[in-house]
């Protein structure tokens, strides 16, 4: 956290010495990474302070900040993607230069993740306007989370990454615990213990890496490693990799360390699951990629015995385990959570392939999966809010009563399978081609198998929504359905289905909220986006390829 303050101090220094500089600030791209990290963390205090005096200010503050962040990321993106080769926008925090100071680095990889973070943050925020949760403390945690995620994306310092991992973690635990049922506190505690374990193991790895190289800056660690440290301190570097990888395997929810994730996703409030599912794990997976390719480098991955095999095995095991577990679930949010385990397994396996094309595929799939999961969880939230349905069979007849929600969920789910044209297809395609190029037949086979399994649980959902009549499921829904689509306050859904969940039903009905047009529209926007980006395969490839090239040139 003190790094947050350091960056803020560094940011304010030029303002204090030269107030006229405020006007020029907007045009200095180098300042943007620091602003993107500092502004949301600072703004997190605003809803709480304003909340003492005025009601209902949190949302506007959060929206204004998020929109500003989105605009800032676009400005960085214009700089990073405009020129041909590998471009970086570097900010030295507090003006201290690299080996000792902390750097914030925006390159092709981090910028696309930052775009995903700020874009999804705005989208989810639009949903929470009506869908809830509300309250100034929620928006404070929300902004803290956004700031932490952006910090995690931009940081170029291995230790600083730990600090941001923990900021993100703290905000996430708090947000999950906001769920109405007591279960959410248990889920949050579980996540807290495991998440802290993961981050601590990462810190231990960073410590060993620091012993081996004497640096914390990612670029400097990398060059030191290849200047001899890799040979001299072989054991230290390998041990550090073991700790870092296991730490991230917990954070990214790789099988068998995924156990916190289904609980956390299922028990978090509906407005928050999209954010956590789309961003927190995605950015952790980004951080793993960043450490693998910028810090350790491709050569370490491919040349050290068993490293590549271990990464591939973990990835493949997660793909299979996640898919199979997802098929067996009855709760929609839990099913989607297990599906995340498998999709992140695919990304880790793609990292393990260590070919340029697979790396591009992993990055595209990270972004695509983030968008799809955000949309799907928002869709699940809309359905739960208006229809009271949380389990797959309660989705029966959804297409009839809520055509827009059903269609959006269907589009998103189909793109999760990887059917063109959708961004889900492009990511998988690049990874699959990368696997075939690398002659990793197991990976190719697993991609195919997991696609079949994904189709299995997606088809179940589609079949229930479109071809199972609502009457097959008793009472509750008919009432909800008749009372209209959008504006009716759904009084009671799924009485029979929820009978065994007495306490949950009461929690549900007190939580049941109006489904506004805006909430539906956001889900539809995510659906359109996944399909629209499906046509942008070339553009995405062109945008990310310089980074992959740089990584593999170095190695």
């Amino acid at each position: 956290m003190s790094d947050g303050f350091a960056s803020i101090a560094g940011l304010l220094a030029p303002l204090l010495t030269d107030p006229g500089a405020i006007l020029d600030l907007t045009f200095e791209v180098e300042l943007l990474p620091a602003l993107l990290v500092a502004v949301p963390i600072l703004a997190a205090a605003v809803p709480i302070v304003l909340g003492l005096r005025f009601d209902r200010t949190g949302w506007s503050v959060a929206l204004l900040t998020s929109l500003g962040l989105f605009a800032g990321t676009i400005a960085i993106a214009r700089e990073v993607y405009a020129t041909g080769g590998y471009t970086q926008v570097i900010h030295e925090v507090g003006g201290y230069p690299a080996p000792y100071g902390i750097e914030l680095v925006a390159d092709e990889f981090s910028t696309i993740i930052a775009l995903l973070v700020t874009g999804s943050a705005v989208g989810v925020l639009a949903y929470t306007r009506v869908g809830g949760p509300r309250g100034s403390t929620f928006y404070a945690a929300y902004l803290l989370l956004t700031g932490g995620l952006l910090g995690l994306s931009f940081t170029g310092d291995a230790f600083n990454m730990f600090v941001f991992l923990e900021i993100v973690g703290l905000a996430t635990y708090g947000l999950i615990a906001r769920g109405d049922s007591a279960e959410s506190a248990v889920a949050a505690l579980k996540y807290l213990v495991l998440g802290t374990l993961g981050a601590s193991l990462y810190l231990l790895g960073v410590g060993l890496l620091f012993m081996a190289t004497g640096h914390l800056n990612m670029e400097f660690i990398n060059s030191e490693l290849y200047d001899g440290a890799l040979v001299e301190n072989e054991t230290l570097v390998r041990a550090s990799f073991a700790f870092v990888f296991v730490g991230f395997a917990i954070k990214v929810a790789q099988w068998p360390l995924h156990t916190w994730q289904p609980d956390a996703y299922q028990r978090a409030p509906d407005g928050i699951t999209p954010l956590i599912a789309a961003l927190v794990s995605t950015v952790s997976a980004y951080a793993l990629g960043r450490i693998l390719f910028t810090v350790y480098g491709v050569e370490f991955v491919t040349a050290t015995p068993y490293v590549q095999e271990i990464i591939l095995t973990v990835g493949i095991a997660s793909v299979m385990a996640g898919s199979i577990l997802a098929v067996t679930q009855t709760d929609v949010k839990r099913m989607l959570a297990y599906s995340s385990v498998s999709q992140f397994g695919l990304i880790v396996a793609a990292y393990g392939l260590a070919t340029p094309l697979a790396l591009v595929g992993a990055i595209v799939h990270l972004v695509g999966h983030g968008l799809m999961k955000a949309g799907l969880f928002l869709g699940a939230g809309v359905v739960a809010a208006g229809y009271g349905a949380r389990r797959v069979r309660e989705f029966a007849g959804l297409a009839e009563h809520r055509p827009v929600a059903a269609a959006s969920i269907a589009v998103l789910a189909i793109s999760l399978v990887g059917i063109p044209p959708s961004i889900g297809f492009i990511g998988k395609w690049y990874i699959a081609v990368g696997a075939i190029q690398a002659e990793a037949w197991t990976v190719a086979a697993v991609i195919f198998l997991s696609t079949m399994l994904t189709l299995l649980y997606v088809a179940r959902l589609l079949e229930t929504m479109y071809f199972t009549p609502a009457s097959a499921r008793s009472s509750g829904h008919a009432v909800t359905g008749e009372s209209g689509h959008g504006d009716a306050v759904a009084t009671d859904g799924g009485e029979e289905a929820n009978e065994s969940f007495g306490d949950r039903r009461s929690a549900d009905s007190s939580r049941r909220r109006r489904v506004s047009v805006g909430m539906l529209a956001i889900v539809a926007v995510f659906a359109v986006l996944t399909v629209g980006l499906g046509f942008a395969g070339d553009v995405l490839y062109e945008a990310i390829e310089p980074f992959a090239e740089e990584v593999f040139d170095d190695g």
Partner: protein
Amino acid sequence: MALELLTGTFAYATMFVLLAVGLYMMIANENLVKKIIGVNLFQTAIFLFFVSVAYVEEGSSPVVPAEADPEGLVLASPLPHVIVLTAIVVGVALTAVGLALVVRIYAEYGTLREDTLREVRTDE
């Protein structure tokens, strides 16, 4: 030889013992508060590790010396100390959040033990 190894690396040995104790508490202890203490112990072991990494033989504490240009000045590395300071702050915050969650769980379920909690939850 074994003794030499132990005396030379006792800081690391201590760290791994603490690490193991913390991890064991985290996994095996049924009491939620003790679990959180285990997490804290685990982190503290890592802080200790960072502090011992900074040690330089014959090195003095990294403070700017009084004379302008002292000869033969050997300092312990200040960087890990600074890092640990940040990590400690993070650790304290985590413990606080963890304990707050435990308080909420206790208020809802009336128990601090994980096995009882599991029973209560499956009953519902």
